[in-house]
């Protein structure tokens, strides 16, 4: 099984000629996304103002096969450096991150018939990160601030050519914090999830940012880059590569909560962050405290060698909303991700946990 190539590829950002960044951190976010002057939608893809950098993640978070366009704007003359919360880059005040979720009619042709659904905007103020959902209008001419989120049905053809229907949830503003909150000392702060140095190395992207001066204080040689899942052939991986890819997948898809400084996930004592080295906390022969429906009648999070008996695989596969993980952002199973995690568990030396 392969991860589907070209889920987005790097979008060649056609510059929106009439876009001029207009970021005022002293005001609440504008009611219309266009008022920020950072992006617009043109046909099947976004266009961005000059100075807005598009980027991809080595291993992206799965969101019901939504195609994601990521872009970041840093105020002129500023740069990001290592040391932000949860291993993410520490971005300067005034930074804006835009992540647009869209659905092509047919994911086998992901650049045609693309309909933007929502753009999630994070902005870095003096007080920290804020997160705001914008919902695209029917004509894709603009996106409206939608603090209450939205729930709707989305239908598309998946990469295997099958029709899929998603109960697509645009999170309420307050739901953003369910994934984006992190403990920092005594405080709970908001933080982006994706832009960790190790998740930005694909295609020389991080080096490009360093060369452009928007990332400083970092040597790419010291970065243990996450596996690039685009086009990944699971069957061809060595055991070590499989472990790396699986841990990278769990890190981006699960570890925003399941990490020792996570707010939502710490209760479970299941730590799926890449840095965790404790097998019990990784789920090996670990009973969940209170998985509820999510346990699927199984006993342990991971039974080495036996994905069918592992709750971790079950919770990724199931489409029962009372049982599935992650908590938010999917209603469908990510077949390729499930295959990766199942292969990883199957490859572990067998242990019945007795």
């Amino acid at each position, binding site marked *: 099984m392969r991860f589907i190539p070209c889920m987005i590829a790097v979008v060649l950002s056609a510059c929106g000629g009439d876009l001029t960044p207009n970021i005022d951190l002293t005001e609440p976010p504008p009611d219309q996304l266009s008022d920020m002057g950072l992006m617009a939608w043109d046909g099947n893809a976004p266009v961005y103002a000059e100075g807005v950098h598009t980027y991809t993640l080595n291993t992206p978070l799965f969101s019901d096969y939504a195609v994601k366009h990521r872009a970041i704007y840093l105020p002129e003359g500023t740069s990001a450096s290592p040391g932000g919360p949860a291993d993410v880059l520490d971005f300067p005040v005034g930074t804006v991150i835009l992540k647009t979720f869209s659905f092509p009619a047919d994911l086998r042709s992901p650049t045609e018939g693309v309909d933007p659904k929502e753009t999630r905007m994070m902005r870095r103020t003096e007080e920290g990160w804020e997160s705001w959902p914008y919902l695209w209008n029917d004509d894709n001419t603009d996106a409206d601030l939608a*603090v*209450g*989120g939205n*729930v709707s049905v989305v239908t598309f053809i998946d990469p295997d050519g099958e029709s899929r229907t998603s*109960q697509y*949830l645009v999170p*309420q*503003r*307050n*739901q953003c*914090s369910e994934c984006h909150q992190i403990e920092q000392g005594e405080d*709970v702060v908001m933080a982006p999830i994706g832009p960790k140095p190790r998740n930005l190395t694909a295609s020389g992207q991080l080096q490009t940012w360093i060369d452009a001066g928007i990332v400083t204080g970092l040597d790419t040689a010291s970065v243990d880059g996450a596996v690039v899942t685009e086009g990944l052939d699971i069957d061809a991986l060595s055991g070590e590569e499989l472990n790396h890819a699986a841990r990278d997948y769990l890190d981006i898809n699960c570890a925003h909560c399941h990490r*020792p400084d996570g*707010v*939502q996930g*710490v*209760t479970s*004592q299941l730590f799926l962050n890449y840095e965790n080295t404790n097998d*019990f*906390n990784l789920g090996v022969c*670990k*009973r*969940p*405290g*209170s*998985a*509820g*429906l*999510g*346990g*699927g*009648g*199984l006993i342990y999070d991971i039974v080495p060698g036996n994905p069918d008996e592992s*709750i971790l695989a079950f919770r990724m596969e199931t489409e029962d*909303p*009372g*049982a*599935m993980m992650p*908590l*938010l952002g999917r*209603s469908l199973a990510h077949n390729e991700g499930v295959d990766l995690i199942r292969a990883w568990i199957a490859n572990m030396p067998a242990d019945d946990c007795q």
Partner: protein
Amino acid sequence: MRPLPLIFPLALVLAACTESTLTTISCDDVDGACEEFTVEDIDALIDRTNTLEDGLTLILGEGDFMLDNQLTLRGASDISLLGQGMDLTVIDLAPASESQVNGVDSVGDGFLIQDLTIQNATKDALRVEDSSNIIIRRVRTTWSAGPSSENGAYGIYPVRVDHVLVEDSEALNASDAGLYVGQCQHAVIRNNDVRGNVAGLEIENTQYADVYGNMATDNTAGIVIFDLPGNPIVGRDVYIHDNTIVDNNRDNFAPSGIVRAIPAGTGTFMLASRRVHLSNNTWENNDSVAVAVLSGLAIESDPATWAIQDANVLGDVDDLGLMTGDGVTFNFRTENVLIEGNTFIGNGTSPDTSDAELRELGLLLGLLYGGGAVDSVVYDGIAESGFSTTDGTAVSNDNSVCIGANEGTSVVNLNLAEVLASGEVPTLDDVFRPAAPFAPYDCTALPGGAVVLGELPAGVSE
């Protein structure tokens, strides 16, 4: 001081009577910022909950608020969410059944929720997390299907809250725990009704809990107290008194989790718990066992899984004398338990032997007593230094399990580890059943002093 919304005395009196259909509350009754919402205003309500400012009161009118996403309250303190009564204001999550959402989900200090029902949540009905000074009053959580493994996990669920009061509420039909107090400090849980859940009322990894006046009936287990393996908050000082735990014989319908191991017919168990005082409660007609005192090793036998990294341990533990290892603390022991002044009637007459693999304890009790009534207090005796089936002076009580004067008590030490290891079907000749006054369990006070009571949230006087 927490600025409670000032509810006029008349409304307060009426609100105390939840059966009354005359109960109404409006913003006229409230001092401070307040907005009212009818069942027609759901979009406005959702938007408002996402743009909160401190001290806002949200009042919901009568009727069914049909929501396709949870109410998410974040980013502000002293928010009040008030309905017109448990029978009159209903937040119904049925339209969100395809989404992974709770019912009402709050993070914020000083939250007050009262006089409403939350039903049919996909996950938890009322989840309050990481907050201080929380009041949950006259809130019903339920699922329309009745008890079902398809229901959400928890009903009323404060987790990692310090100072929480849950009173006069009803928690029904949850597939895990109806009223679940998890990883809290200072919890007062009083005068609630828990029915039709797997675990009725659960005190988990919680410090200083005062649990009284509650009615637990028709659950798989009535009131349970335990610590989870590896959880950084070590439970302590749990005072369970003046509760009624009756007819908790519902077949276990938990889809998973530790509660799935509970035999139907369990009144109360404590597991990996310490400084627990059970007083003036009534256990009646719980068919497996009235009270079980269990080591954490009874369910998770590898001590390593109970190790908490010292750097991660939260809350007050220094005086507990917990077992320690190299940089870790262990919380699997159940110790310092006082059971006095309670009434036991007709329990243990028909233990749940339905699942030998999952619910070993039920099967064991069934085999051991062979149709006779199970002793009202069952102690597993795990990790005690001395044991004899007949000579009480040879039986240790290292864990300070104290059985004072109770009505209708009898006690057994199962010597569980050895009984299980033998692989033989045990008989009553293999266990220790002391006669009153139950030496060596005849201590009458908790070592280290009486349990410390849970404090009420700020602004609540009694």
